[in-house]
């Protein structure tokens, strides 16, 4: 089976390692643009001597040492790069499941778009600031998109409850670090859950299983008690977030035009609204 993964950071490498050890996995397309830095060392698998090398290359070496029979194709690129979308679409089309292990919103939306267009299921892991817990999501082609899920969850979750207010008296000053780093143990816990959820996608439907088993869902796993946020550590909450009919990301757009017609329609709209 073929996996399409974006991200081989401190969480992504845990997912990648677990997936690569599964005998069903035979091929991995990996997208990771970053270089291994000194600040990565205490949360990652690789030693300080690897600083300066591409994370993608390090990940490939790690897998080949353990599963030489698995083909790994690394691609050093940003998943949101519009110039490379054709390449990414090919990877999405030929995979059996997608894995998103990035921590920035544009990359999550870009991966969501690729996977919805390809009609393939995918998973996403998110460690909360400070390692107080994390989210793991399973997305299916007909279910809610990442926009639906993020929009729904933002009503309920404070990821950075103790973040200081910005200093508006000095707006040009350096902005203090907003995210509190999570520990390797916290990242590993959420990433392992992420890997499990992904391996579930590779399994055939269980005999007598319900239709609901094939749907998307989200799991919140708490790792710490945080007053006002989580009452207890080590609790799981499972959500089946509905697809939003009003979502501007995934609600069906009018099939009015395609290709050059789309460009012509856009030029006309710009000319129409170009008054000043």
């Amino acid at each position, binding site marked *: 089976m073929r996996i399409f993964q974006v991200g081989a950071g401190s969480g992504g490498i845990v997912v990648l390692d677990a997936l690569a050890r599964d005998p069903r996995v035979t091929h991995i397309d990996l997208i990771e643009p970053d270089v291994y830095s000194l600040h990565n060392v205490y949360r990652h698998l690789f030693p300080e001597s690897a600083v300066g090398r591409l994370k993608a290359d390090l990940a490939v070496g790690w897998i080949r040492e353990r599963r030489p029979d698995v083909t790994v194709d690394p691609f050093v690129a940003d998943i949101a790069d519009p110039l490379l979308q054709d390449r990414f679409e090919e990877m999405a089309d030929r995979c059996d499941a997608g894995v998103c292990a990035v921590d920035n919103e544009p990359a999550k*939306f870009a991966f969501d778009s690729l996977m919805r267009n390809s009609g393939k299921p995918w998973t996403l892991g998110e460690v909360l600031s400070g390692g107080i817990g994390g989210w793991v999501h399973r997305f299916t082609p007909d279910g809610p998109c990442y926009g639906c899920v993020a*929009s729904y969850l933002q009503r309920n979750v404070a990821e950075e409850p103790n973040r200081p207010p910005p200093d508006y008296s000095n707006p040009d000053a350096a902005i203090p670090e907003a995210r509190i780093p999570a520990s390797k143990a916290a990242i590993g816990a959420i990433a392992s859950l992420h890997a499990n959820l992904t391996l579930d996608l590779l399994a055939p439907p269980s005999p007598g299983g319900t239709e609901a088993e094939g749907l998307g869902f989200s799991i919140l796993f708490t790792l710490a008690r945080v007053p006002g946020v989580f009452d207890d550590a080590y609790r799981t909450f499972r959500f089946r977030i509905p697809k939003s009919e009003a*979502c501007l*990301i995934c609600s069906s757009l009018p099939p009015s*035009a395609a290709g050059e017609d789309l460009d012509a329609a*856009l030029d006309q709209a710009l000319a129409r*609204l170009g008054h000043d």
Partner: protein
Amino acid sequence: MGLLDTEFGKRRLLSVEVPAIEKYNEGRDAAFKVALARVGGTLLLTYLLKPCHNPYRLETRLLSSYPTVPPETRVLTPLKHCPHLLEGQTICLWRQGSMRASSRWDPAKFTCIFAIQAAWRWLACYEIWHETGEWPLPEAK
């Protein structure tokens, strides 16, 4: 997800943003209509707002990564140095993860017109601050 160079971006513009701008402009005085122009890989909305006593000229830029990344709004009319005003008279409108719905950007729900409405609210706060020295809305949390 380039706004002007991917099918997703173009469809979003044609089916969501452009109709929203046309609806906003409908029946509005010509001086207060939103004008739209392509500037490189971005779209620039220019418009006039008058929340209380004074008119202000603004521009809202939809970056190539819009709608994932929120629009940036800048006041072109000179302002006094005040809270919630960033470099280049860019106004501080969004706080990622904010618990207040109107203080966070939600690409699944908002169009560029929401950014204009947020700028109107910001300018109304600015005029009150100008008179009283107090910003009338609390910090986004």
